[in-house]
């Protein structure tokens, strides 16, 4: 048989031996070899490792494994024991982690086959994947445009049908924004829902690992595998993990959707607005109730985010000093080893370390860093208040469709504004999803973002599946089988 497109169908076919895991793996590797060179979603394809793992699964298939034989791609800031992990940086160009991330262990236990590591902005700092030290990734819908970022490689690997599932990380929108710009589903879980053990740290009060997929059912399956408590991450939550597939009823009658209309009055492209409105209409016709909500502090989310995230980044990236791992620029003094080794960071990473160092420095800490944390508390209170009236809050994931390569690289502030609707969920620790909801006049995908209460990912998945039933997902030409 030919390899099914959906993870759920692949799992069933491998479990019944209608197809072997090796055949599924070979098909994914062939497709990557055929279509990835111009797109550059992958930094490293572990063909030997993946085929060996698939053969192991065929020898002893665990029929109840939720991702049995399913190929999965990982963003290259997720550590894989014995497999190069670069975070898109020259500093980690030759780094081979001595251990695997918690999510990798969970994927392996679930029967998944990890096929490779995907491109990202260096240390996940960016919104276009152009800040990768190894060259940009291109959008399969329009190769002159970026896929968004920072998890652009994972979004493209799924959008172009190279793999049915991938993992990314989201500090300010790095799963949801590329999911929107590439026309796939992407979920940023509640802070603490997924262990970050083995995720290369960027902003520790914001980072979460999350899934990409082309259907809500597949997204729910992958999310169910990676969610859960891990004592190795001190922020890992102990809340029970529900059966997310049980939420996929298609029934959204009575679901109340809050729409913060004040935030939509400027800066949203007309095509994005039209697709957003149409998707809300579709959910209303299915029985959902729309209500206006106010998030008065949301316009401050971007400045707060860039103060908090960069402060944390400057601290987290202090570890790259050329001593324990990463590349070292040999010098005669330790002082010069630090300076010359850290000179290998790319411009965006340096900019962020500089901002973070400045706002944490004596004389500026209270005015910037402490103040930003106070405003962050107000942003969270706005959501707490909204969730007393509504189940979810809806916004476009990105105010624009995919932008052109090079369009924003010289203007960091313009690049940061790509995250205007996504950063609040990270600051408030809330789960949020991007759901494909149509295309602009120019044929570029648009994402609907839904944000829910802490640990209520099930409602987000329910909404995604309900919309999917009414607005079948489109595929880019490059994503057709």
């Amino acid at each position: 048989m030919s390899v099914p497109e959906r993870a759920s169908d692949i799992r069933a076919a491998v479990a019944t031996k209608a197809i072997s895991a090796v055949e599924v793996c070979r098909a994914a590797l062939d497709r990557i070899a055929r279509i990835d060179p111009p797109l550059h979603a992958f930094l490293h394809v572990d063909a030997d490792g993946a085929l060996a793992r698939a053969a192991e699964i065929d020898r002893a298939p665990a029929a109840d494994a939720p991702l049995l034989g399913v190929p999965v791609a990982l963003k290259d800031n997720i550590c894989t024991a014995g497999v190069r992990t670069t975070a898109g940086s020259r500093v980690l160009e030759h780094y081979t982690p001595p251990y695997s991330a918690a999510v990798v262990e969970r994927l392996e236990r679930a029967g998944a086959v990890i096929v490779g590591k995907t491109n990202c902005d260096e240390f996940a700092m960016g919104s276009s994947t152009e800040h990768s030290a190894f060259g940009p990734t291109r959008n399969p819908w329009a190769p002159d445009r970026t896929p968004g970022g920072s998890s652009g490689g994972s979004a493209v690997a799924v959008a172009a049908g190279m793999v049915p599932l991938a993992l990314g990380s989201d500090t300010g929108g790095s799963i949801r924004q590329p999911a929107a710009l590439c026309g796939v589903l992407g979920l940023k879980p509640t802070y603490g829902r997924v262990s970050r053990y083995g995720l290369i740290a960027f902003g520790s009060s914001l980072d979460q690992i999350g899934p990409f997929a082309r259907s809500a059912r597949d997204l729910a399956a992958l999310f169910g595998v990676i969610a859960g408590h891990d004592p190795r991450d001190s922020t890992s939550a102990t809340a029970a993990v529900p059966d997310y597939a049980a939420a996929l009823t298609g029934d959204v009658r009575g679901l109340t959707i809050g729409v913060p209309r004040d935030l939509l009055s400027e800066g949203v492209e007309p095509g994005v607005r039209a697709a957003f409105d149409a998707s809300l209409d579709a959910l209303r016709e299915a029985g959902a109730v729309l209500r206006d909500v106010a998030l008065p502090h949301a316009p401050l989310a971007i400045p707060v985010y860039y103060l908090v995230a960069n402060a944390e980044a400057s601290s987290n990236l202090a570890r790259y000093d050329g001593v324990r791992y990463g590349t070292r620029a040999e010098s005669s003094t330790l002082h010069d080893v630090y300076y010359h080794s850290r000179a290998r960071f790319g411009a965006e990473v340096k900019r962020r370390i500089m901002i973070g160092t400045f706002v944490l420095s004596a004389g500026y800490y209270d005015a910037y860093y402490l103040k930003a944390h106070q405003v962050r508390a107000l942003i969270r209170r706005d959501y707490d208040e909204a969730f007393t009236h509504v189940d979810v809050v809806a916004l476009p994931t990105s105010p624009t469709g995919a932008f052109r390569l090079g369009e924003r690289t010289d203007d960091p502030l313009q690049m940061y504004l790509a995250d205007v609707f996504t950063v609040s969920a990270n600051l408030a620790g809330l789960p949020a999803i991007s759901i494909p909801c149509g295309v602009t006049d120019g044929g570029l995908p648009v994402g609907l973002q839904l944000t829910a209460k802490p640990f209520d990912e099930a409602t987000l998945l329910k909404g995604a599946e309900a919309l999917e039933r009414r607005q079948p997902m489109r595929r880019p030409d490059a994503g057709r089988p």
Partner: protein
Amino acid sequence: MATVLSLADVDRIATLARLELTGDERARFAAQLSAILAYADQVQQVDTSGAAPDEGAGGSRMRDDEPAPSLDRERVLSQAPAADRAAGLFKVPRVLGS
């Protein structure tokens, strides 16, 4: 607080962060960091009376500090740019004396 960073400020921050910048980066960063900080200045205008700074951050959980196996020393040292594997040490240039 309108923050405009001079080249001397950029050099001071770069020293704190142990970052080596090229001449071109120094000039570009002075302008770009000033623009980013000017944008971030809007948080100063917000009335935050009654908002605790830690309220928005995710909580951490304490655990007992019990001895447990850690990563294999040999595998960890294998990633170091310079190490004395037999002695179990990372190596750096001489720090004291000459």
